[in-house]
């Protein structure tokens, strides 16, 4: 069990360092153990340093930087133990347009092996869909699903 954790930790740590650098276009990140001598009980610290900035506590990161760091860690876990599906509920809400494009580029690399189901209000994120569903409550309180094409999404959103 200890052997398993050690392997997993070092692989996830390596993935995280790599993916963080790609998402932020530089900077550096790391995972460290709170109690390296007691692997069974040790917690995990996250270190994140966006490009051009000095290293500081992760609580000082901005809203968008925290989300990007969390996404980097999520994909680092995915690489270690892929899941065939992944649901994301408005994960892009606090990202600016430039970071949404970086997130999309990363996500597309996983698409052949993972089925993503994404809820979003952001037009840029929608553009990467292959299947589209709109949910309406024409009858108050009752959800109804309608299947949409990409061109319908464009017009439907401006109606929203």
């Amino acid at each position, binding site marked *: 069990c200890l052997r398993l954790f050690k392997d997993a930790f070092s692989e996830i740590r390596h993935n995280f360092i790599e993916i963080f650098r790609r998402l932020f276009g530089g900077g550096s990140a790391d995972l460290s153990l709170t109690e390296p001598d007691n692997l069974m009980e040790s917690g995990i610290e996250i270190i994140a340093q966006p490009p051009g900035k000095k290293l500081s506590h992760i609580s000082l990161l901005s809203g968008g930087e925290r989300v990007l760091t969390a996404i980097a860690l999520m994909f680092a876990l995915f690489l270690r133990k892929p899941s065939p599906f992944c649901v994301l509920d408005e994960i892009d809400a606090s990202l600016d347009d430039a970071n949404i494009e970086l997130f999309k580029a990363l996500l597309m690399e996983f698409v052949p092996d993972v*089925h993503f189901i994404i809820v979003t209000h952001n037009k840029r994120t929608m553009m990467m869909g292959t299947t589209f*569903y709109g949910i309406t409550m024409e*009858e108050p309180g009752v959800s109804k699903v309608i299947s949409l094409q990409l061109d319908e999404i464009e017009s439907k959103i401006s109606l929203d």
Partner: protein
Amino acid sequence: MFFKRLEINGFKSFARKTVLEFQQGVTIIVGPNGCGKSNIFDAIRWVLGEQAPTALRATKMSDVIFNGTAHIKPANFAQVSLVIDNRSSLLPVEIKEIVITRRLFRDGESQYLINRVPCRLKDIQELFMDTGIGTTAYSMMEQGQVDFIINARPLERRLILDEAA
């Protein structure tokens, strides 16, 4: 391909039988506030065996049964079925298509079925053991929770890492 179809009936705001067909690639779900998008994710989490009402934004499990509107009576039960394409034999059974179903009645009775045959929750959990499917923290990111892992205490983060170990 993996999730082929999701059928929801009487679960949360889905008063009538609703079907979502899935394809390979990226499925996008849109709609105004309060229309039922996150309820679809709750349905997936529930059919995969979720036992904690709070993980479904509910205070008691019966909150997931359609509660009625001004014009429609409350439902007697909630039912969700997930049709899984198993041609890649990711799940340790010989069957090519697996249908997981979960039902909850107002009186509290709860049923689980695999390919329409009643089973126990344990059977569903064993089916998904070690496949990466299930409600791990990194395969289901709830609304507003994406930076949970950043805010979490070091030991909570450890639990999430252990899921991927």
